């Protein structure tokens, strides 16, 4: 069977923070146009995986490799990864007081364009682009005058992440618990935004604790991560199964105290 090289290939990835090993051998392949959901209990390593892929230095990669478009991703700095088309929607978007939301985004977009050898957008062209993309997540004008994430509600922050994603137009988007802290309406808005960005050549990794997000963003594949490893993979029915049975079945016997988690109750 011949298969084209996937966009992202993770092989036996191990990472630690301090002395604590969090990823203990992750294997994952994500192809262009695919949406993969990664689910798992709290502390299983979901968010760590996202941040390691984005290049956060807090985590030290101790083994394994990550090939992105056939190249060694781990050798790149966070901004080089962004230039290569990787975007991470943060679980906790960061506030930057005094820096205008649109100014920030234009700086980011132009930094990417410049390093890709593309022409930078002037203020007018950027504004036109931003206005168009704001519709996607139903953001109103009042967003534009505010500082990055400052004083935003939880839902506004998450919408802002998806808005940034729409403007920066990544090839691989990693959504880190984008559903956390959202009420059902906000969840729907964000999910609609994400669905609007699903294309043939864009891959997405959707990290979530709950299956409910996957009612709106329907994944091609679902992976269960537990104790730093992917312990089960399947189609979207796996998410439903988890909803009913919880994560307890995947908890390692050596850590009985942690079994269950919220999903099991």
């Amino acid at each position, binding site marked *: 069977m011949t298969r084209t090289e996937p966009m992202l290939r993770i092989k036996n990835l191990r990472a630690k923070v301090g002395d604590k090993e969090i990823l203990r051998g992750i294997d994952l392949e994500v192809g262009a146009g695919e949406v993969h959901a990664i689910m798992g209990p709290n502390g299983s390593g979901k968010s760590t995986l996202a941040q390691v892929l984005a*290049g956060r230095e*807090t985590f030290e990669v101790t083994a394994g490799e990550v090939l992105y478009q056939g190249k060694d991703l781990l050798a790149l700095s966070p901004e080089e*990864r962004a230039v290569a088309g990787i975007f991470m929607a943060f679980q906790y978007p960061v506030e*930057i007081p*005094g820096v205008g939301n649109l100014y920030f985004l234009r*700086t980011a977009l132009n930094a990417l364009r410049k390093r890709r050898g593309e022409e930078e957008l002037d203020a007018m062209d950027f504004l036109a682009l931003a206005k168009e993309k704001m519709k996607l997540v139903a953001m109103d004008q009042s967003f534009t005058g505010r500082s990055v994430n400052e004083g935003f509600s939880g839902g506004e922050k998450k919408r802002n992440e998806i808005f940034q994603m729409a403007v920066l137009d990544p090839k691989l988007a990693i959504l880190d618990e984008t559903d956390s802290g959202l009420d059902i309406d906000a969840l729907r808005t964000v999910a609609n935004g994400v669905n609007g960005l699903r294309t043939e050549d864009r891959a997405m990794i959707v990290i979530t604790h709950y299956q409910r997000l996957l009612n709106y963003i329907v994944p091609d594949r679902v992976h269960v991560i537990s104790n730093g490893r992917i312990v089960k993979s399947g189609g979207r029915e796996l998410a439903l199964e988890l909803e009913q049975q919880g994560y307890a079945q995947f908890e390692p016997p050596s850590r009985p105290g942690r079994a269950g988690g919220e999903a099991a109750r």
Partner: protein
Amino acid sequence: MSAPPTIQDFTSRQYKYGFVTDIESDTVPRGLNEDVVRLISAKKNEPEFMLEWRLKAYRHWLTMKEPRWQNVRYPPIDYQDIVYYSAPKPKGQGPKSLEEVDPELLKAFGKLGIPLEEQKMLSGVAVDAVFDSVSVATTFKEKLAKAGVIFCSFSEAVQNHPELVKKYLGSVVPYSDNFFATLNSAVFSDGSFVYVPKGVRCPMELSTYFRINAENTGQFERTLIVAEEGAYVSYLEGCTAPMRDKNQLHAAVVELVALDDAQIKYSTVQNWYPGDAQGRGGIYNFVTKRGACRGRSSKISWTQVETGSAITWKYPSVILQGDDSVGEFHSVALTNNYQQADTGTKMIHIGKNTRSTILSKGISAGHGQNTYRGLVRIQKGATGSRNYTQCDSLLLGSNCGAHTMPYIEVKNTSSQVEHEASTSKIGEDQLFYCTQRGISQEDAVSMIVNGFCREVFKELPMEFAVEAQKLLSVSLEGSIG
């Protein structure tokens, strides 16, 4: 956890304006005694009252002790090892126009990005350029004269407007005020003088560029700005200095007087040589700045962006004497490497319904130490007065320090004082958020710091705001990769 690379790279930036201009200096002998004071006064051909005033100050200074309460550290200063007067020697006669100014001098200004001629034609900003201790070029005088505004060097004011100088000199900062102000009163060489008559709105922003040039010359500037009833003036002060190994003392005095309904806006961008990455050299900037809102509904605002000097020690203050008068202080102080800053303000509320606002932004990087020290005093008679103070500190890296020392004295029950303070670190999470979006670490630091300072930059005149942002970015410059 180690600090992100940017923060270490902070220490690697070089001072951009380090060069020495080769101009003959007309200096008096090293050291200080009554004869030196007399010599300075004689060289400047001053009237008797000035000499008397200087001598009074000198004699008082001899009885004073150098203060040690401030939160800065420096080796003892040998006051006998300072040259107290230095003036660029004119080749032949003194210059009557820019064309006659020493070309070396003009070149120096050019290097600093102050092309006088161009400014004359294009910018609409009058420049009273202080090179060492004597003003050598003043532009726009005619236009100002037409409006009745006097803008000249202090020496010229002493010669041409002695009655004004006599009336206001020392009326806000008396000769006996403090150790450094008293020293300044005895030996000050020159500075700027501004007088805006009743009802006149000064037609342009007034700007002075200071520059310390001759080696080991203490710089003792004296600035006096008077705004009569209903007058308005905006004054910009900016400076750079050449690289030096030896610390240079700068003890300036600035006095502002605002009468009824008058308004004075005083903006400073200070970029003196801060010393090298190990903390050697650099300017000691010990300055006394004070404004008196003498009239009803008068207003004085200080805006400062302090990025230079090895040690910055100053408290631009406002005495709110007139009823309904307003005092403002907006400050950005950045300390990097081994820089130290102990700065803040004093708001003294005397008149009824007086209002003051203090907005202080301190940024510490490297081994920098940044102290905000402020006094808000509301006197018994200052009923219905209000103060709002906000002090924010931003730390970059883990070897620097931020300190906040607010003093509040309220002596009546109808006044209101609010104080807010915050200390934050440029977080690894903020940097990662920026870099994940494709912004380099260096640009991210610059962006975050500029955002932190935005409220203060808003208060600066447009062209100064741009300069201040650039300066901050230069001060934050380091190489990535």
